[in-house]
């Protein structure tokens, strides 16, 4: 038997496999047993209701896709009153992804989640635009990222995961700033900004023009980001980006991730998360690895591996 239990800061998960925010919902319980997962992660919840972006919201690429969904949702009050009871049907720790347009709104919303029974952790989606900084994403710069993280930390005692964006010049600096501001884990990474053009109409294919690139073709970039963050911080990293098989997950863990999230792959293979989980255990068994945590950082250069442990 391979030990799959995974510690992310103060939280112990039954295994290291979970969904990526925005690509998952309780609807998937009609296809598979969600209680087999290490954690559940909600779509990003925003303080106020949002309609989302203009359509089309998706553009297919070779082995991946661009999305500009725009975080539609009914807002935080609806989430705590109406969505939480549905989530609480499941036994697995619930991670609530939180997105907000300002530092103060992040803090206020985090306080509400801290007072909501059944929330196991907050995943701060700081890839969203900061309206106080000309709409630049919080995660673009170390200072704005740290300001959001520190405000959430002060407002709530819940375990705090922070989801970083590839759309930054220096991910290691952002990672260190988030760690210093009180992040308990980093989720690496959100989608990378991309574009597709319809050459018949000479217009962008997405209603919002640019969109976030995800799926298998995005994997090498996300893997590189995990590798860089693992060498920059001591807190656990949750790897995400293009994972669709157990082999992909093993790569992310070897690059320094303690756990993984599966996003876009679930659109093509609805049970992809279970395939990753079963395959991960099988890989460890085949290689004589008794604890999945032994994979973490295996591929890192020796010096950095020590730092990551």
């Amino acid at each position, binding site marked *: 038997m391979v030990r799959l239990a995974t510690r992310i800061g103060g939280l112990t998960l039954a295994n290291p496999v979970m969904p990526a925010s925005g690509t998952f919902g309780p609807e998937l319980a009609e296809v598979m047993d969600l209680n087999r997962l290490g954690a559940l992660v909600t779509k990003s919840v925003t303080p106020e209701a949002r309609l*989302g972006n203009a359509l089309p*919201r998706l553009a297919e690429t070779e082995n*991946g896709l661009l999305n500009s969904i725009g975080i539609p949702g009914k807002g935080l009050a609806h989430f705590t009153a109406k969505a939480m009871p549905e989530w609480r049907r499941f036994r697995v720790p619930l991670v609530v992804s939180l997105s907000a347009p300002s530092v103060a709104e992040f803090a206020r919303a985090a306080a509400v989640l801290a007072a909501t029974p059944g929330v196991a952790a907050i995943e701060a989606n700081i890839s969203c635009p900061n309206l106080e900084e000309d709409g630049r994403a919080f995660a673009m710069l170390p200072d704005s990222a740290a300001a959001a993280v520190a405000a959430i930390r002060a407002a709530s005692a819940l375990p705090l995961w922070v989801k970083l964006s590839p759309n930054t010049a220096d991910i290691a600096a952002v990672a260190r700033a988030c760690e210093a501001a009180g992040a308990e884990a980093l989720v690496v990474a959100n989608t990378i900004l991309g574009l597709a053009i319809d050459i018949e109409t000479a217009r962008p294919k997405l209603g919002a023009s640019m969109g976030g690139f995800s799926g298998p073709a995005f994997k090498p970039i996300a893997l590189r980001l995990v590798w860089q963050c693992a060498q920059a911080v001591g807190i656990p990293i949750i790897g995400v980006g293009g994972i669709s098989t157990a082999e992909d997950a093993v790569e992310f863990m070897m690059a320094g991730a303690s756990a993984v999230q599966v996003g876009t792959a679930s659109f093509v293979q609805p049970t992809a998360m279970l395939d990753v989980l079963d395959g991960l255990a099988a890989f460890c068994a085949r290689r004589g690895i008794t604890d999945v945590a032994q994979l973490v950082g295996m591929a890192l250069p020796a010096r950095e591996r020590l730092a990551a442990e």
Partner: protein
Amino acid sequence: MDTAPSGFAIAQHACPVLESAPVGQRYHRLVVAAPGLAVRTRPGQFCHLLCRDAGGNGPYLRRPMSIWRIGTDGTLGFLLHVKGRGTAALARLRPGDALDVVGPLGVGFSLPPGARRVLVLARGVGLATLAPLNALPVAVHAVLSARAPEDLMAAEFGASSFEAVFDSDGSSAPAAVEALLRRRFERERPDAVFTCGSNRLFLLLQRLAAEYGIPGQVALEQQMGCGLGMCFCCVRDIRDDAGQVTHQRVCREGPVFDLQRAMSW
């Protein structure tokens, strides 16, 4: 809830292809063996198909496809307009190849209580979505609209009673179809109306059905990502109970919506 042998309402199936043949110039029919799926499928539901030919070539995402035939022998049929990469890959499948199907998905058609006679208004391949209504215990009269007689596919629709209108002779013009529908509504008033495949015909039927007080439904299409209600890329404007315009997911709240609540697309 009605569940597959796996215990889950929705499942991924590897279905052997039994028939794969072109229909006219632009369409293609696929019939697969799907015993576990066919028994749980309701008219108006759809499947999400992995569009890969036997060599594995095809686009990354699945494509939504209405269930055109629900066989009592455990088969399912799809009728497709060969349009782009996905449907072209499906058309390359041959008997014996496997089709990867996720389903059944979405909310299908429902008949008002006591309905005995319904009218169906279909444009193009929209008739694939409406065809399973023929299996319900009601008399179906169809008005089928197509570009030209060779595109009609009346046999594929399978109704015993139908009228056809065409672009090629002008009979499909909105004013002509309106006159035709008014005649029908006055002579043999249907208990419900159903439509799929054309925004113009939808608007016409919505207006006339409201005028005559006949309930109805429309099957909508929208580009999809997950097909399962998780990504919110497939939304359309639909009026809610209070008449407010809301975004509803075609894959989850639909693809079949109340005729009066749906909006022009």
